[in-house]
């Protein structure tokens, strides 16, 4: 029994119209299934057209663009350079500090602005904290994709602590708009140093807890080892970067190989995948690289906290009005997802003439169809989770 709507007439015939589908040239054994953009584990609005033979994936086609926000065009239309910074936050909303860091470094090099020592230290600390927060989310949602619900919430508790520190420092929890060209928007809050040190101290045992709870869990290993193997050569050919590349055993980290900011002053390792549980370059390797990187970030934060000068104005070199000189450059930094590059062109006006963001998620995603062929549908979810994309960054 259906109630009629009082004002409009519903069509009387409710039978759906049969559509003739041309099946010529398609394999009848195979089924094309639409995964996303509203699928729970595509990490946002990614749409995958998956061709399946039974449960075996024979082809994957990524359809992107559902979150395209014209970052590059907006950046050109801004009045000046600093006005672009809030937009960089929104490229990768999970690691906004790293995005800002990449952009201000590019802009400072282009505009030839010196940055005070203290500012560099604070930037490195917040960038590494953000890296930990971002990896916590990546690892947590990866576990969630495989059905492990509780580790996700444990890790979110830790991420929450980082966001609390950021909130007290910058006033925002997700999109900070904290770094300025030549400095920072404001002084960090008075307890910044002690709170960060306390966080690192209590966070280290949690990494060990995560290793016990998830990394070496036999079901977890069964679901990730030998799955989605990405050989180093393929990773390099597809220009992958970040944990995706390092998971395949390539030791490439811009913090060491092309040091920016003050990263050359710190001692830390670059964890790479070793094929400990399965094949080199499988999902487990990509996962464990992220876990180990959190420990390395802790090391950097501790060293930076020790060496950080207590006195100094973070705003002293921030120009009142940014004046540009014509020029262009490409500056790259290591975001939690890989090589984040900003290609800037400035002409006579005060705003950038062109901003191109090289988003690591976008590049890393291109490897998905290659490594997911022949795996099962459940593995596809695991592979996608191990690549760790943020759709804001894929689409920009």
């Amino acid at each position, binding site marked *: 029994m259906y109630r009629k709507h009082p004002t409009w007439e519903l069509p009387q015939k*409710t039978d*759906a119209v049969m559509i003739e589908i041309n099946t010529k040239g398609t394999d009848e054994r195979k*089924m094309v*299934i*639409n995964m996303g953009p509203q*699928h*729970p*584990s595509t990490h946002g609005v990614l749409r995958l057209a998956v061709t399946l033979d039974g*449960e075996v994936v024979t082809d994957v086609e990524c359809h992107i663009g559902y979150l395209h926000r014209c970052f590059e065009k907006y950046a050109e239309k801004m009045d000046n350079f600093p006005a672009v910074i809030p937009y960089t936050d929104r490229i990768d909303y999970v690691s906004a500090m790293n995005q800002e860091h990449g952009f201000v470094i590019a802009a400072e090099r282009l505009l030839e602005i010196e940055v005070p020592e203290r500012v560099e230290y604070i930037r490195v600390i917040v960038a590494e904290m953000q890296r930990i927060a971002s990896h916590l989310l990546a690892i947590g949602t990866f*576990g*969630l*994709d*495989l*059905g*492990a*619900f*509780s580790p996700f*919430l*444990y890790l979110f*508790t830790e991420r929450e602590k980082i966001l609390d520190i950021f909130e007290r420092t910058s006033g925002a929890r997700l999109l900070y708009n904290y770094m300025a060209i030549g400095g920072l928007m404001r002084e960090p809050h008075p307890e910044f140093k002690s709170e960060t040190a306390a966080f690192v101290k209590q966070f280290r045992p949690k990494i060990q807890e995560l290793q016990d709870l*998830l990394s070496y*869990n036999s*079901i*977890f290993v*069964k*679901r990730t080892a030998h799955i989605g193997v990405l050989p180093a050569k393929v990773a390099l050919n597809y220009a992958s970067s970040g944990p995706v590349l390092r998971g395949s055993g390539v030791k490439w980290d811009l913090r060491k190989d092309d040091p920016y900011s003050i990263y050359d002053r710190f001692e830390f390792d670059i964890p790479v995948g070793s094929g400990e549980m399965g094949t080199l370059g499988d999902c487990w390797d990509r996962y464990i690289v992220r876990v180990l990187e959190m420990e390395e970030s802790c090391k950097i934060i501790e060293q930076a906290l020790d060496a950080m000068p207590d006195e100094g104005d973070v705003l002293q070199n921030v120009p009142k009005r940014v004046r540009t000189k014509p020029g262009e450059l490409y500056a790259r930094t290591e975001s939690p997802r890989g090589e984040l590059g900003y290609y800037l062109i400035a002409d006579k006006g005060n705003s950038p003439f062109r901003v191109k963001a090289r988003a690591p998620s976008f590049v890393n995603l291109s490897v998905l169809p290659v490594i997911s062929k022949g795996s*099962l*549908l*459940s*593995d596809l*979810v695991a592979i996608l989770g191990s690549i760790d994309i943020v759709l804001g960054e894929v689409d920009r």
Partner: protein
Amino acid sequence: MITESILLLLLFALIPLIIILIYALFAIWGERKVAGFIQDRLGPMRVGGWHGWAQSFADLLKLIQKEDIIPANADRFLFRLAPFIMFAASYAAFAVLPFSSSFIGSNLDIGVFFLLAITSLLSISVIMGGWASNNKWSLFGAMRSAAQMVSYEVPTIMSVLSVIVVAGSLNLMTVTEMQSGNDTLGFLPNWLILQNPFLIIAFVIFFISILAEAHRVPFDLPESESELVAGFQTEYSGMRWAMFMLAEYADMLLLSLLGAVLFFGGWNSPFGDFMAGPAWGFFWFMLKGLLLVFVMMWIRWTLPRYRVDQLMYLCWSILIPLSFLNFVLIALWEMIF
């Protein structure tokens, strides 16, 4: 006279229904509380005052108000029928469970057989719902569920059979009665799990298999939300979805209670004559069943999920040979001692 007996039958039929309904509402709340405590948070705290005890009632009210959506190309008859068959199957199986020494819905001589046969209807309703939804995700969930439930019925039945070999009866009341008393080692109860070392293995196999039968983690593939959206329930909403949910929780309790009867002495008190009697029997029976349900919840919030081929491997290559071997060993033990 006839009307009186019909009324009596209805009354007897209603009691399990009321138990299931009350249990399901509180089990959903309890599961969220268990999840909360395992995950370092509080769970529902608002509705109803004390620790959000009325949360499930609020959810139920919400679900009743929902619009009833049936997809345009769905098979409307089967789509509507599936949730009811699922609930009817798990509800009907409660008829042969001895809730206490003086209450059993139907004292069937082939009680275990009836229970196992009627719960097999569950997989039919899952396939029905998945197929009728006319959705690829639902179909996937249904197919996985069919394969899983049919496969895991074999180790379940084998481990149940091992108990039957020891007990010598298919009547669940008889199986329970023979576990009365506290003679094992002088003070332990006469529960079957304490009678025979191989029955402990049988219980482990039984418990793993009922996790798969009830679609619980780590075998929740038919509704694995991160892969199949919601599996066979994808297109269901409102009360129909609630029926599936209810049936799922009823199924959990049913299988746990079966485990309590077969291995833990059913309504027998663990202290011999102390705290025994029909009312206490009901208490002990539910307590044992709910403890097993709690373990299921505990596992759910701890482990990740198996993949479909690993699930089948576990069943056909490990559990089934092991359960057959165990069956033979139990029979030998019974012959010798």
